């Protein structure tokens, strides 16, 4: 079992043609599962790609167990401990499932054939693809391909696991199994899970980072994120004026996030999603101000 990795991000910035995708980011991540939340364009994928050593930052630096990603030699050390599932997952369509995971396992320096094959089988079992090991990748559905991607990410038992939108394309049952899998992996590992699905974060993450326009707007536990919304979630017969967010529920009443919308409104228990919505809504207000 892999031991955890200490990830340190200092003053990280990344610009594309003068547009800042990330700005002045400081983070320290310890073993456990960290969820990266944020709307589209918040910088989640950019951050994951920098952590995966695929992108060089415009400013600041990333250190993994003291190795600097900017240093070519250190970068190799980081990659030796890295498992990565990109958002836009590409696989070799003519390879079989087993062959593809095996191929990447070789590139991850698993040199002993018997041990490597054992690990490949274990990874495929973990994502419930063992029965499809001999299938050509081009014949797989999107969800199956995603699971192949997860299998290759975990095959070398990485200390640092970066998962960018891992549950995209998975059906609810597969997502539930994925959560179980990630929860099992997270104990000793440092897992960074980028997603826009708050329920995934709520289910498995020990820590949440909310990004908005390239900046960290929240960093804490899911409980702390949920706690931000305590006392600000209401069930009201009327749409909340001046609320951060408000939507009509199945019962016909409005779920309002913000100040009490009316005297008839009753307080509801907050969720992690409420906390996330509150953070992003406040960020939007701050930006507008």
């Amino acid at each position, binding site marked *: 079992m892999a031991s955890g990795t200490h990830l340190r991000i200092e003053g990280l910035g990344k610009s594309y043609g003068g547009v800042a995708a990330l700005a002045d980011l400081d983070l320290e991540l310890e073993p456990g599962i960290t969820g990266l939340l944020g709307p589209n364009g918040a910088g989640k994928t950019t951050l994951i790609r920098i952590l*995966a050593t*695929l992108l060089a930052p415009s400013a600041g630096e990333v250190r993994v167990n003291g190795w600097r990603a900017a240093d070519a030699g250190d*970068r*190799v*050390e980081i*990659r030796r401990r890295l498992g990565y599932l990109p958002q836009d997952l*590409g696989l070799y369509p003519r390879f079989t499932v087993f062959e593809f995971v095996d191929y990447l396992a*070789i590139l991850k320096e698993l040199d002993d054939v018997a041990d490597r094959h054992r690990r490949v089988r274990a990874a495929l079992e973990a994502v419930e693809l063992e029965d499809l090991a001999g299938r050509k990748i081009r014949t797989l559905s999107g969800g199956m391909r995603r699971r192949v991607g997860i299998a290759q990410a975990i095959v070398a038992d990485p200390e640092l696991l970066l998962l960018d939108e891992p549950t995209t394309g998975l059906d609810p049952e597969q997502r539930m199994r994925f959560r179980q899998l990630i929860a099992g992996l997270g104990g000793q590992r440092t897992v960074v899970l980028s997603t826009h699905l708050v329920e995934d974060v709520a289910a498995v993450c020990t820590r949440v980072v909310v990004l908005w326009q390239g900046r960290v707007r929240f960093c804490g536990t899911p409980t702390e994120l949920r706690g931000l919304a305590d006392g600000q979630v209401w069930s009201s017969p009327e749409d909340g004026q001046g609320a951060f967010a408000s939507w009509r529920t199945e019962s016909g009443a409005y779920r309002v996030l913000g100040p009490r919308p009316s005297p008839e409104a009753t307080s509801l228990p907050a969720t992690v999603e409420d906390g996330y919505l509150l953070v992003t809504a406040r960020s939007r207000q701050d930006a507008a101000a």
Partner: protein
Amino acid sequence: MKPVAGIEARHLARSPLLWLGLGLALTLVTLMQVPFRAWPMLTGDDLLAYQTGFWVGGGTMLAGAWLGLRDRTSGAVDLVAVTPTAPWRLVGARLAAIAVVAIGVLAVAFATALAVSAIRGGRGIPDLRLLADGALAVTLGGWVGMAVGWRSGSRMLSVLAAPVWWAACQIVGTWPSGLGAPPSLAVERLSPLLGLTEHSAEFGFLPDPLWPHLGYLLGLLLLAGVGLLALAARGGGQRPPVVPLLAAMLAGVVLVTAGGVGLVTLPRWLVVLGPDRADWKPASEVLAIDDRSWTYPDDGHARSCAGDATLTACVYPAYGQRLAGEIHGAMGPVAELFAGLPGVPTRARMVPTQAFVHSACRGSEVQIGEPAAREVGGNDNDLRYVDFYLRCALGERTWGGDGAGGGDERPGEAADVVKTWALVASGTMTAEELRRVLAEHGGPPVTVHYPLSPELAAAAWAMAGLPTAQVRAELAPLWDRLRAGTLPVAELPGQRP
């Protein structure tokens, strides 16, 4: 990286692009051999096997380009990039896979071509340097393809690369003067695949460019390999070992330079004027000699013979007695017609490749150049053996023939009439067949030097109407004048009232 090379090789071997190249190569081999134009001979058909490299190389190049493209087109480039394996190692493994598969596929095509030849009765020893040379050439094609796919990331460029590369090779290989190369330099040999046309079973290649070409190709491969590894290492964290790379690059430069210079300065053709190497002259020297009366001395190499008291045919042992029998079978009936007449050949002998000369006459011997003997062998409809015999029997002076001055001296019209008569009288053709050929082509299927006018054709038919023994008896006193070209047609048998 051996396992990666293994996986890549397995996938490359299943590439439809590669199979397309192999399929085209095998089709070519079959189409070129099935009509049985050339006498089957492993020494000689090895050139056909070598030429399959053109098609196999095209397939290898496309397959290589697709491999180079794969990471980008599949979107797996990030997955590969975040592994600790140095990119140059991965590129090295892929280059190795391409080399293994390219060599394997060429070996299949090569072996198939030789097998077809062997099934047709081909004998002799193929030059395995051709397999090595072709293997290096197709590997180079595959590597160039991979470089194009990998660096450009463009499917369009990758598809176009194969025809462009091979067209460039063809231009270099067949039209060097069009590229401004001095005529004295054989720049065409710098093409990855050599345009070899003749392989003598007895003397090998004349001249032999294979060793310098192997060195030249090996040098090109070393330079291409080093270049691709260096490109892969650019910007990466793990550098390839510098000393071996520099050594390989240096070796590549030396091999390309030495091999290239050796290739372009080697004469284009060597004419074998005798069994000793000192007698092998560049064609340019031979052609510059005004007196081209040279013929090939009896070197004792043509030892496989077939024949009778009238005519013996001898070929190099590698061809076996079957070809000797074939030549005798074609010439024998005609030789019977002229048996005992002065100056007629009593022997037909295979002689080495002689540039631009198919046959020559030396005393009582018909000398048949090795390629000419192969070319007509096995084709029932080809009367060139008969033609070679008749030209010598009737005293024609061909380049390389007896007589002062040499050159194509025209015998008289009477000789054309006698040749036409001989075809029917010997039973080589029936009168009906000859009539049809004359009607369709205006002349007999042997060399005539005057248009066979209706008058000349009528003279030939008049001779054919006489008993053969009578024609022979009447020709005997006219024979010297007939061979000297001074006999008028009116004096031929059957023409006098």
